């Protein structure tokens, strides 16, 4: 696609879309939204870039290898956060009972492990969207 207006508009809008996606992920424990919705917003911004500028330039920005690394990292990160509870002598995925500092409600750092887990799951959902899109868009060689 070589549409001038489309390219300029996407260049203008995409940074704000990505900012919104990261905002929704980081404020999952404070406001409506969370890891899944924020991850999908972030992933869709990358998909929109690939749609307008072409799959090759999209692949330059986020390579397939990086996406698969992020994908695996998100799943492992969740399990690693669960191990915090075991290391502190309680059960798997324990949050308050494991002595994680909860912080003041309403601040960005509150909710203990919730923020960290949301971050991992959000990145994972974003990479899942992009990977699915790329896998379906790639033409047969």
């Amino acid at each position, binding site marked *: 696609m070589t549409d001038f207006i489309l390219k300029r508009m996407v260049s203008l809008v995409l940074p704000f879309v990505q900012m919104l996606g990261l905002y929704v992920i980081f404020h*999952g*424990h*404070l*406001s*409506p939204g*969370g*890891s899944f919705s924020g991850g999908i917003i972030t992933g869709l911004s990358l998909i929109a870039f690939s749609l307008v500028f072409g799959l090759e330039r999209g692949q330059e920005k986020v390579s397939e290898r990086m996406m698969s690394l992020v*994908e*695996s990292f*998100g*799943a492992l990160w*969740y*399990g690693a956060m*669960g191990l915090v509870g075991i290391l502190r002598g309680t059960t798997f*995925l324990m*949050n*308050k009972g494991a002595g994680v500092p*909860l*912080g*003041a*409600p*309403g601040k960005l750092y*509150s*909710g*203990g*492990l*919730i923020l960290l*887990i*949301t971050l991992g*799951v959000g990145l*994972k*959902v974003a990479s*899942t969207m992009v*990977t*699915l899109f790329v*896998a*379906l868009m*790639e033409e047969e*060689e």
Partner: protein
Amino acid sequence: MSNKIAIVLLVCIGVVVLLAISELPLYGSPDTPAQNYVAERYIEGALSDTGALNMVAAIVIDYRAYDTLIETTVLFTAIIAVFLVLKKGTDRRGEHK
């Protein structure tokens, strides 16, 4: 003949289903089985138990953390399935099969 048997069986099943429906509590009534101590515990204890203002996040990622953990695994499995079906693999020397 088999038509008649089917009709009789359907009527029997329909009567049972209608009996079950007539026993259902009214929509929004306070004494449904779903309105038990679990929901009360979540509403009263979400803030002090997790420190998160968003009760949905508190339930999804703290109380029901196992559920979400397996949910991310579902995403992972979906990606693996798509790759299995759509991607052409390479062997150990990097040659396309």
